Each structure stands twice: as C-alpha cells, then as structure tokens.
C-alpha cells in the first residue's frame, strides 16, 4: 500500500482520503518514508517537518479539519515561501536558523485547504540560478539521472515530485524557475499571470517578476493546486482583484483531446536554432504535429523584441534584487558575523553579507547596484524597462492572431552538475525561452513534450494575462494524447 500511495496523483489521493480508502496520516507517512529512503541521494529537501506534517494530516483525518479535493495530500514547499515556526532559508546562509513569525498567504491557503506540508525544498540561493547548484546547502540531483541538475531555481521542488517524495510541490518563477525545472524533470509546472498568486510571504528576489506556482506530475493536479494557491490578497498590492481563472475546468476539458479551432503561434525568435539541442527541437516539432492532429492550427509569429529579453531581464532582476536583499544587514534577524564588540556597525554588516551571500547573489547585487546608480540608471534600468514595454507589445500583437504561443521550455535537456557552474552566461541561456513571458507578466506552463536521449523535454505554452486556463487546456490535451512521460513506476533511485 505504502509504495502505491507515493505513485498516486494528488487528485487520486484526495479522493481516496475523502472516501475513507486511506487516511491522510497513512499518505503522509508513506511520503515521509519515501523521503527517508531516497532523499539522501536526491537532496530535494532542506528541512522535513515530520511533526508538523503528521499533525496536519491528523487534523484532516479527525473530520473536523479542512475539506476539499486536496485535503490530506502532501506537498513540498520551496524554501523561499515563509512558514511560521518552520525554518525558511531561501537556500542561503544568511537566513540559516531563522524561524519566520508568520505564514505566507500561500502557506496559509495550503493549510486552509488541508494540504500537508512535508517540508521545505532546496533552491538556488535567493532563487538566483537555473540548476539549484547555487544553494548554500549543496546541489539537488535530478531523479532521472543523479549526475544531472533538476533545473532551478525551484530544483528541490521539481526533484521532490519527480522522485515521488511528494505528489505536489510549489516553486517560484522569476525568469523561468518553475518552467525550466519542470521541463528537465518531466513535470508539469505553471507560472501564473503576475498578480494571480499572492507574493505576501514570498522572500523577494525581483518583485516585479516573482510569481509562485504549482508543480505536479499531471496537468489536473497542477490545476487543482493552482486553484488552491491563487486569488486576490489584500496584503499584496500587486495582486489582481479577479477570480482565479477556471484552470481545473480547462484541465478537464483539455483532457478530452479536442483542440478544434485553437490558433497556436510558434514564436520564431525562441523556436530553435543555435544553442538548442536537436532532441529538444525534435520533441517540439513532434508536439506541434500532435497539436495539429488534435484540431489546432499552427502558424509562425515573430516577436522581434524577444532578442533583448535576456539583457533586459539581467538588468531589471538584479536591480530589484540589490534593493530587496539590502535588509539582510545583521541587525534584526539571520546571520551576524564579526560582532566582536569592537567592529563597527558597517563592518559587521559588511562581514555578514560577505559571509552570508554566495557568489551568484553577490554578482547580481553588484550588477543591480551599478545599473541603478545615478548617471547609469537611464542607460541600464531605464532602457530595460523600455524593452519590457516592447516585449509586451510584441505579445499583444501575436495574441491578436493566436490563442496561445508555444516554444520549447528550455533549449536543452538537464545538464550535468558542474557543467555550467563556472560560466554564468551559459547558465543564463537556460532561461532564454521563459524570460519573455516573465517580463510581460503573462501565464505560461511547461508540459512534457517527449524525451531526448532518455531525458525529458518540455513545451512552453503561453497565454494572455489572466487566461491561465488556456495553458492548462492545451497542456491537458497534449498530456492526454501523449500519455504520462514518467513511467507509472517511481524511479528506482
């Protein structure tokens, strides 16, 4: 029974718990056992909250607790989302040992829905990276090949679900940090419309880009989790005051496999070519052919400004990060280094930040500080914002002729651990396809499109703002046609 429980989907587990065929505690214990068994090799989790998880499961089982389609279903939460009384490190030494005194809105919504939080997952420090190698606590490994990365920055969350140590997980996506890890671990991962999910309690990397979203092994599970975490939050001024798009209904509708009349645009600038692996291009061509087979029309669109997405992103995100990360100053919480009673305040701040932040975080703080400096602001931050506007216009023009736009989720399959560690530019290229949607604030999903040399490839489906349901409908149709990319068996690990 225990192995079986870890291979079931979230929807199946929720239904089985509701029907009394199993209990939330049994399901939770099965996943805790699986974590104990395999996570030593995967290292998806930074902290496993055994007590908290079992207590939440018992509350569901008591019958007085929360109810809903995912009540009692376990979940792995990216360590960037604060959890009251449970460590939240953001993959950084600077927050080692910090116990947040409050819950993020997302955390509170999960708890209210009876979802059991198993623990906190590894990530690139402050969500800066595409491989989870930038974690201060060591890399996470891809369950498909332990020598490869699980993507990043939400690599712990993708690896946990791919390793069957959780049926659901939550990541955050600033420039592709949900979609790229989902693609390289064979999962479904969705970045909602900016403002669709509250950022209250999400430790900020780049405020105008950060967005939390769901991971799962199926489109329906992803949609069910999206519905739980989404919605307006008065604590987040940038949260959109509108109902959650009908993502679950769209996932069910898409599963019928009928996409008749759907207009699919293939974005020329991020469709393939130099830097894209042939296996990724082949899987993408195959996915397009299947979309046509399901009744969609496919045509090419051009979004010329996308060429500037990468430089614009690497000005805007570091600029905001340089300001957002200023608060880690050794005064109120987190690490404090060099406070020997002699060192000045500035020295303690400086020593703490020197010791507490890793190389990539420092690189981006320096980059952002420079880009915002007086005399450089217009040339860098100002120009990047103009590019952002142009990208938005390109999307608007493309969506005039297409219901959804598609591209590969990332140009390659999972790369080897260490392969790009010393080459930041090669690392940044992993986000080439995902950055435009981030900069425009529109929703985008990554859904498995096939395998290349035995490793998963993902297709990105983008839709206009607040039309997240279109992403789910297309993804569900592809999933129904292609079948599950992962074998129904958990990886042996």
């Amino acid at each position, binding site marked *: 029974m225990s192995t079986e429980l870890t291979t079931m989907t979230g929807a199946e587990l929720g239904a089985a718990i509701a029907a009394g065929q199993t209990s939330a505690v049994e399901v939770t214990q099965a996943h805790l056992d699986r974590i104990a068994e395999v996570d030593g090799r995967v290292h998806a989790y930074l902290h496993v909250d055994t007590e908290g998880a079992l207590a939440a499961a018992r509350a569901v089982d008591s019958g007085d607790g929360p109810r809903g389609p995912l009540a009692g279903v376990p979940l792995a939460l990216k360590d960037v989302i604060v959890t009251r009384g449970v460590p*939240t490190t953001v993959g950084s030494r600077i927050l080692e040992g910090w116990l*947040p*005194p409050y819950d*993020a809105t997302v955390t509170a919504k999960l708890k209210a829905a009876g979802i059991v939080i198993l623990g906190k997952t590894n990530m690139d420090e402050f969500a800066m990276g595409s491989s989870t190698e930038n974690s201060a606590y060591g890399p996470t490994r891809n369950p498909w090949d332990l020598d490869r990365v699980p993507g990043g920055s939400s690599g712990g969350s993708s690896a946990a679900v791919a390793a069957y140590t959780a049926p659901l997980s939550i990541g955050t996506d600033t420039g592709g940090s949900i979609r790229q890890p989902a693609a390289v671990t064979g999962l479904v991962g969705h970045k909602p419309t900016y403002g669709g999910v509250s950022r209250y309690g999400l430790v900020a990397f780049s*405020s105008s880009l950060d967005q939390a979203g769901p991971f799962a092994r199926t489109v329906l599970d992803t949609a069910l989790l999206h519905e739980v975490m989404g919605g307006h939050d008065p*604590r987040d001024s*940038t949260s959109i005051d509108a109902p959650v798009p009908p993502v679950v209904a769209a996932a069910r509708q898409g599963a019928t496999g009928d996409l008749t009349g759907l207009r699919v645009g293939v974005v020329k600038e991020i469709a393939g070519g130099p830097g894209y692996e042939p296996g990724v291009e082949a899987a993408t061509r195959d996915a397009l052919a299947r979309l046509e087979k399901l009744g969609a029309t496919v045509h090419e669109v051009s979004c010329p400004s996308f060429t500037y997405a990468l430089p614009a992103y690497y000005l805007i995100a570091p600029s905001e990060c340089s300001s957002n990360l200023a608060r880690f100053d050794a005064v109120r919480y987190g690490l404090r280094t060099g406070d020997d009673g002699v060192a000045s305040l500035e020295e303690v*701040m400086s020593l703490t930040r020197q010791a507490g932040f890793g190389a990539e975080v420092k690189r981006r703080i320096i980059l952002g500080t420079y880009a*915002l400096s007086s005399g450089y602001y217009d040339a860098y931050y100002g120009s990047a914002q103009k590019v952002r506007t142009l990208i938005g216009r390109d999307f608007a023009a493309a969506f005039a002729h297409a219901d959804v736009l598609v591209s590969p989720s990332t140009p390659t399959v999972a790369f080897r651990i260490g392969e790009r560690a010393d080459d930041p530019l090669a690392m940044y290229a992993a986000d080439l396809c995902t950055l435009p949607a981030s900069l425009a604030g529109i929703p985008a999903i990554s859904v498995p499109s096939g395998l290349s040399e035995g490793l998963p490839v993902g297709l990105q489906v983008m839709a206009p703002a607040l039309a997240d349901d279109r992403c789910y409908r297309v993804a569900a149709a592809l999933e129904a046609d292609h079948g599950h990319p992962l074998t129904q068996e958990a990886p042996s690990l």
Partner: protein
Amino acid sequence: MTTIESAADVAHRYDPVIGLETHVELGTASKMFCGCPTTFGAEPNTQVCPVCLGLPGSLPVANATAIESTIKIGLALHCDIASWCRFARKNYFYPDMPKDFQISQYDEPLCTDGHLDVVVDGRTFRVEIERVHLEEDTGKSLHVGGATGRIHGADHSLVDYNRAGIPLVEIVTRPVLGTGALAPEVGKAYVTELREVLRGLGVSDVRMEQGSLRCDVNLSLSPAGSGVLGTRSETKNVNSLRSVERAIRFEMGRQAELLDAGGRVVQETRHFHEDTGVTTPGRSKEEATDYRYFPEPDLVPLAPDAAWVERLRAGLPELPAARRARLAASLEASEFELGSMANAGVLELVAETVAAGAPAAEARNWWLGYLAQQANAAGVEPAELAITPAQVARVVALVADGTLSTGLARQAVDGVLETGSSVDEVVAARGLVRVSDVDALGAAVDAAIAAQPDVAEKVRGGKVAAAGALVGAVMKATRGQADAKVVRELVLSRLGAPG
C-alpha cells in the same frame, strides 16, 4: 564663542536665500504600509509587525487615509495634484530603517507647485512650494556610550521600530528670495503658518517637541544685488519655531563672516544646538550619497481620481489666512494681534469666547495672559485647559457687573481649572464675592491701623505710598474679597491723608 553679526547687518552686504524642508507625521490611526497603531510613547517595539520590521517576504499596502491627507495638504497649499504618480525606493543602509530602503517619492510627487503666503512686519511674502510628497518614517536609534550621542563612537545602539512606517509628508519650498534682514522671521512665520494650516486640516497633531513636525533649514548668501545663488548649508532637525529663527540668524552670521574673510561656504549638513543656538558641521561624507531611486515595484501607481480630489477640495476647512481675515473684523484685532493669538494657539478660543458674549479685548487678554500662563505652567496647550470659552465669557461678565474683582476672577478661573465645576458653582463654593460695603470693611481697616501704628503715622505725615502695607493687610484679612480701591480710599480718609 563667536559673536554673530545681526541679520540686519548681514543683509546690507548679502541677500539671504532660505529654503525649508518640513516633515510632518500624519495623525493616521495606522501606519503607512501596515496596520500597526501609531500611538506616541508606547513601549519600544510593541507597535510592529512583519511589514514595518521589514521581515523577508512582507509587502507594503498603502494607507488610503494617508494619501487623502497628503492630497488635502497639497490642496491647502494651492498645489497641483498628480493624476498619476508612483512611490520610489530610496536605498541606503541604516539600522533604524528596517528594509534598508525607505519607501518615498522621487521624481513623481503627489503634489507640486503650490504656495503659502506669510505676513511679517506687515509685509506679505509668498513662499513657493516645490513639492509635497508622502513617505514612511524611520525607526528611532538611541546610541549609548560615546561622547556625541551619534552612532560613531557609541558602545552600542538601541533601535525602536514603533516609529518605523508612520506616514510622513515632506513639504519642500523653492528657494525664498527677497526676505533680506527679515529672513529669520520669514522662516519662522512660514513654519508657524504651515503648522496652522496642518492643524486646521486635522491631519497631524503638529507637535514639534514630539517630532511630529520637523524642519530642515537651508540657507545661502549671495552678494547683495548680484542675483548669483551662493552655496547652501542644510541645518537638520530644527525642532521649534524659535529655533528656526535662531538657526537662520546664526547661519547668516556664520556664512557672512566666512565670505567676508574670503573663504567659501561648504555644502554640508549641519546640526543645530538648542542650548547654544549654534550650528556645527555634521559628519562630512567622503562621497555624495547615491540613493539609487527606482519605482517601488511592490506598490501599484497612485492615480487619484479627479472627482475624489474635487470632493476633498470642496471639503477643505477654512484656511487660517481666510479665517484670520474673517476674525479680524469680529475680534477687532490687527494682523499682528491675530498672528500672536494664532501662534499661541488661542485664536479659536478667543473667537469662541467673543461668540459667548465677552468683549474682544477682554477675551484676548484672558487667553493670551493668565490662561496662557496657566497652560504653560501645566505643560499643555491652552485648548487643553479644563475651562471652556463660555466659562471664560461668564467670568468676564461677572467682572463687568462688579460681582468679581480681577483678583477674584483669577481665583474663580483657578477653581474651574482645578475642579472642572462651573464658574457660578466655584464662586458660590468658595464665597468669592467682592466686599465693597464700607461698613463691613471699616472694622478691618481699623484693625489694620491699630496693628501697624508706625505705618499709620507715616501716612498721616503725608507718606501716602506707605498706605500700601495697610491695604495689603486688609486684603489679607478679607481673603482677597475686598475691593482694593475702596479699601485704599477708606484707609486714606481714616488717616486724613489726601486720596
């Protein structure tokens, strides 16, 4: 200590240019970006939450009342109200700033291009307002140990974040030219008038001693008639009306002396010392601070709806200048007298006292005189005294009809202040009735003469001034209820001296 040349002398050779930046803590019930209360004087770090402590993950949500108050201030200062503007982050490291950036406004302030007229010595000066913007206050640091009370050299520092996040409005003037020798007075009059405007709007308690109104004074001198702006000094935290005047006066003298000697003024921050009236240079910065302003991505732009702004405009209370013009007639007072009443915080009280039936001169004298002293002694504003304008008017009436003498009237007022009872109750309870009956007083006068025969002899001998001692004795014996004038007449007539 240096002797500082007078403003009048400096103004012969130099044209002073003043600029004022005023910070006003708004009196909203909750903070600017979170729901924490704003009560002054609470235990340190008891009015805090994840947002105003800048905890990781927390986000700001703008306080609508604070935005409304800022627009009201802008309207009262005749500003244009932006139809669209944004908050910006001002980035710098300091321990009393929880996020190590301050949410403020930069190149898109909420209100711009206004003015405030002030009258000094019968001349009207128009102070142009460059901008009015909204930001959050910082926490408060207490640096323990070390000689200066500043962070450098301190043994350790304590930070109270109760103030962090309290809405703060910054009002910045354009350079004020043409004030000459009156620069110190114009500076003071501007802050005074601004305080009245803010008080009238009810947006802040504008208490300089509690820091809810704080002032930075910029001053530069240019050679008289040259029209060339000089280098300015910025004197920070000048926190009383009198200090504004003193700081300007001191800086005029200091800069004139420097320039006279062929030196040059350094652009720097200076500190004003209340005790000595002197400014001293702040810590010199090796390099200019670059605050790396950029639009606050956690907040949506502010777009005050035009109809809302017009509703606020229509709902503005009468502004102090207009009110003074109206009251000038009913109070039969000059602009100068109105100014004194406004400065003392009694204008409204005098007006209400007059409305309750007292003659204007009497009402003014009570509030500016005895009652102002009592308020001062108790450390409260006159308006906070436990006596109402109607009660003051009643006292005035009792004096007018001869029931109370001036001395008894003060005792009646004291009684009201102490007990909160009505004037008539106090008068009855304390038996405060003027004794002017010659027969009733006769015995007391005779007793006083009998008790001090040597004094009586002097008076008989023509030393009329000596009679005061006898009058005093009678007043004491009658517990102040006697009419001093009648007593004096009685004493003199009994002793055969000329009255």
